[in-house]
């Protein structure tokens, strides 16, 4: 073939730099209009309704409790992640499945840019849908009068997780462009999330805290009410997930066909940055420790977040004693005062009887849902400190098969209050303390026959038969027939005589110095 005429290439007007963002925006718009994510949104909405929303409304109307299931345990991520990864893989494999690779490679814009536009549209749809769905769920919560403050940091973790799943799925589809890429990415993502949850159940500290559906140490009932949601762990998780997203997106730019050498170097830097970011996040998490308001990562911690959230308590009175709660628990004030009335009346006038009852935050625990905080009486004048978030509040509760009745709630508070009054601490107490506790419970309306069960429900069941608890050196043991026989004798005393005896012996009883033989 020879030329009929030789002609130099026509000079072309250089492109204005301002048109580049416009072109990219137009490309993104075309991709947004043809993305597959909207097709699966009804499915995700249904799944989120059944898996994330419905179980959460069985919890009391407190943000930390309502959202622990869907945000703290990562159910919103589980609802979105596998589907988003699958659809992203479908979009990522589109070019290869449709035989468009040559055409796109022959275009002036680097292939990586075309892929980024497709992924960008996928991520925008997925993250946008996540935020809208969560926004709707939170709107419903607000309509239900949920108290406290929403866990925004954990919403952000979910959004970054969705972006990470979209990036990882897209990369799978781009590198393995077949119709099987989408189901493989979806199933693989589900397996990863299941492993994340299972590892979380097993490892309650260290690097495993970084896993996106590990619910240990995320946040607990006092979060957003007494303490801010600590951002340390969310920041580390977002670093990990953003690192995964960056690495996956960067990988797309590494092959020869992706673009020029400079662009491929940039892609390598992005990939490396993603890997370093993810590794740094894991490294930071290994330094995590338990603080009073949640998991603290020293390098990410801001001491300002340790300050309690100021609140003006709401108060009522019962048996001449003020009872004050955090305003987030305002709706339970009547139930709490009614529940404490028999106990406060029974101990009124005795040394160490509470002059006031206030709600306090339960201590933070590294395990989810493992509340082990009894009430305590301390200070001068004595104050009964009630960690209300450690008991099942009246109404629906995710921890019980049926709604918690007032009497069940009241019994828990009464048992814990009496237990605090006799100074038994976290365990069942000494035999003498058990006797006095049983007599006071009887006086507060809890018959002896029901007490073993009530103690068990309150987490104060005596240790199993077999003698004293090892290593305590204290006279402790099961609430035996001997205990209840002595308790019956004490309860049978005239009120004035019992009052007088208690006034004389409470100090020794609380110190653990009183023996069974010294009881009346």
């Amino acid at each position, binding site marked *: *073939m*020879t*030329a*009929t*005429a*030789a*002609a*130099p*290439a*026509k000079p*072309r007007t250089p*492109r*204005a730099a301002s*048109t580049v963002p*416009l*072109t990219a925006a*137009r*490309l993104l718009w*075309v991709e947004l*209009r*043809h993305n597959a994510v909207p097709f699966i949104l009804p499915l995700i909405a249904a799944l989120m309704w059944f898996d994330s929303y419905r179980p959460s409304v069985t919890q009391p109307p407190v943000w930390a409790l309502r959202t622990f299931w869907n945000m703290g345990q990562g159910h919103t991520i589980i609802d979105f992640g596998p589907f988003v990864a699958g659809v992203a893989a479908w979009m990522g494999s*589109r*070019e290869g499945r*449709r*035989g*468009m*690779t*040559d*055409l*796109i*490679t*022959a*275009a*002036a*814009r680097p292939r990586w840019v*075309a892929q980024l536009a497709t992924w960008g549209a996928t991520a925008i749809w997925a993250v946008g849908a996540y935020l809208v769905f969560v926004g709707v769920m939170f709107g419903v919560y607000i309509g239900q009068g949920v108290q406290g403050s929403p866990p925004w940091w954990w919403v952000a973790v979910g959004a970054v997780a969705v972006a990470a799943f979209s990036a990882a799925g897209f990369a799978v589809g781009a590198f393995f462009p077949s119709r099987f890429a989408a189901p493989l990415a979806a199933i693989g993502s589900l397996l990863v999330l299941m492993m994340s949850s299972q590892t979380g159940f097993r490892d309650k500290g260290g690097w495993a805290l970084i896993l996106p559906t590990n619910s240990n140490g995320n946040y607990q009932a006092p979060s957003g009410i007494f303490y801010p949601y600590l951002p340390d762990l969310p920041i580390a998780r977002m670093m990990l997930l953003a690192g995964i997203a960056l690495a996956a997106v960067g990988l797309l730019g590494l092959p020869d*066909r992706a*673009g*020029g*050498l*400079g*662009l491929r170097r940039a892609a390598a830097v992005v990939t490396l940055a993603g890997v370093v970011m993810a590794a740094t996040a894991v490294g930071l998490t290994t330094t995590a420790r338990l603080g009073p308001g949640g998991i603290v990562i020293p390098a990410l911690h801001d001491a300002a977040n340790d300050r309690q959230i100021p609140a003006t308590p709401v108060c009522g009175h019962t048996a001449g004693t003020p009872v004050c709660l955090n305003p987030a628990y305002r709706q339970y004030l009547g139930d709490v005062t009614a529940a404490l009335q028999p106990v406060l009346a029974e101990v009124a006038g005795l040394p160490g009887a509470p002059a006031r009852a206030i709600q306090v935050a339960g201590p933070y625990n590294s395990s989810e849902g493992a509340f082990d905080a009894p009430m305590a009486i301390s200070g001068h004048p004595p104050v009964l400190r009630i960690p209300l978030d450690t008991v099942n509040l009246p109404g629906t509760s995710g921890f019980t098969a049926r709604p918690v009745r007032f009497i069940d709630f009241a019994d828990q508070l009464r048992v814990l209050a009496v237990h605090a009054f006799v100074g038994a601490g976290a365990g069942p107490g000494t035999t003498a303390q058990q006797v006095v506790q049983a007599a006071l419970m009887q006086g507060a309306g809890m018959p002896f026959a029901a007490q073993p069960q009530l103690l068990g429900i309150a987490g104060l069941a005596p240790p199993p038969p077999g003698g004293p608890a090892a290593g305590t050196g204290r006279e402790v043991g099961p609430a035996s027939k001997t205990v209840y026989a002595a308790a019956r004798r004490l309860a049978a005393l005239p009120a004035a005589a019992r009052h007088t005896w208690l006034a004389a012996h409470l100090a020794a009883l609380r110190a653990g110095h009183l023996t069974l033989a010294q009881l009346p």
Partner: protein
Amino acid sequence: MNVELTDLTRRFGRTRAVAGVSLAAGPGVFGLLGPNGAGKTSLLRMMATVLPPTSGGMRLLGRDPGAYGPRREIRRRLGYLPQNLGYYPGFTVAEFVEYFALLKDMPAGQVPRAVATAVERVGLGDRARAKLRTLSGGMLRRVGIAQAIVNEPELLLLDEPTAGLDPEQRLQFRALLRDMGQRATVIVSTHLVEDVGAACTEVALMDQGNIVFYGTPAELIGRGEGTGAAGDAPLERGYSAVLAAARSAVAARA
């Protein structure tokens, strides 16, 4: 010269798809003829800068496509229709052409007009908003041509562009080729020799990775005269005669 190929070779494993092709071409319409497996598509893919040559030299539009910067500049001025046109079924005709206009780095402000023009030129103006999944094979081929010409390319590579077009569309397409050939170098790979006769000013014939003939269509016709070669039309007889001569020469060397 818009196209300068020097001893261009492409191997796939032990197979030499293109075996030392040298060509030079300026503006005009060039037909690339040859039987299946002759190496036409591999040659076009190399000229489209999607397939790197194994060896040899190539300059396109005065630039070396081996370096990324010049390659990108070539791609801005390139139109390419692959043999198997992939497409996104959910896109409309206009969106598909716009998508490639944007990927070809056209200024965003010029894209809508360029898309409308390209769609009109292939006779799909009334189907611009139709989804690609609703189009026939011939219409899809025209969409492929529209995306190739949307940027007014200076080098247009068309691999089997008339496959699936009806006779009326082929006539229109030949007119389009002649029009494009006024300003650009158009290389058309085909095995429909009548297309070459009607639209091409020059023709090359490939067999087993080599150029075995190049010249004008009239010269190709001349090669077939009096040889008794098979074919219904003069160009077909020229085509058959050149191929037969090339193959007997190879057999003699062997």
